[in-house]
């Protein structure tokens, strides 16, 4: 019978793989690159960067919402600039779905498609919140493994 640690480690592996491009596609291999930078000197590096990313999402989505709220006088270049920023940071942490939405969003900005922009904004908001919940679950699993006395398995995305 599996020990608790083994069960948790298997759960962690399965959950991580479920986030990968071959499954639900929340994350891409840049997330593995991010994990490579975590070490003894910065044991919480991934959590810190991911937290910065979600703060960035909130700020930029707020900026985009305000810009799109200027009915009849929307500055699409301003919206586009925030989308570019979000694309950059999502790309850096491996947030594949968010990055993909930013590509579509940018096209809507460039063609000054107001309805398209509003739809993209709603989708980006949903998507980053979903990713935030998923990563919180992943970090919780890591904590449980460590508390049970086990090592966190290395799982590449």
């Amino acid at each position, binding site marked *: 019978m599996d020990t608790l640690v083994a069960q948790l480690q298997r759960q962690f592996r399965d959950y991580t793989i479920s986030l990968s491009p071959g499954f639900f596609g929340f994350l891409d291999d840049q997330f593995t690159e991010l994990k*490579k*930078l975590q070490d003894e000197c910065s044991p919480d590096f991934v959590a810190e*960067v991911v937290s910065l990313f979600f703060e960035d999402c909130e700020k930029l989505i707020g900026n985009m919402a305000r810009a799109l709220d200027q009915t009849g006088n929307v500055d699409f270049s301003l919206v586009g600039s925030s989308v570019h*920023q979000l694309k*950059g940071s999502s790309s850096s942490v491996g947030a594949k779905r968010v990055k993909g939405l930013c590509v579509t969003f940018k096209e809507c900005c460039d063609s000054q498609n107001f309805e398209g922009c509003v739809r993209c904004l709603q989708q980006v908001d949903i998507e980053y919140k979903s990713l935030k919940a998923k990563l919180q679950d992943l970090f919780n699993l890591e904590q449980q493994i460590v508390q049970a006395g086990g090592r966190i398995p290395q799982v590449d995305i």
Partner: protein
Amino acid sequence: MTKEIADEVPSLAESKLTALVVDDNFVNQTMHHKLLDRLGIENDVVCNGQEAVDVHCSGRNYDLILMDMEMPILNGIQATKRLREMGIESKIAGVTTRANEGDKKEFMEAGLNDFQEKPLTISKLLSILHRLDFYVQI
């Protein structure tokens, strides 16, 4: 971090290289700072091209500058031109997510020594260092 990963990443600490990260995005700043740290390269971070110019005006100098393209106040193209006009001979590598050929050409012509698409990784950074003769892979 496992020993296997530690063994793969070279340390350039002995070469005492210095670098400047120029990027307006906090996530990218944090990533690039850590990437350079991991390779043993002492580095500073500024938020836009104007700050990059100002830090050089204050007398600081760096072996390598990682320059983002789109930034407020003074963008990467303008900052690169300004630094070259000032006589700064540091190696400047442009890093950006916006990488169509026209943008890349304009950025290179501003005075870059190299160009790399974001997101940066350890291996991409090593490629930059190798192409700029800071690192020889054995």
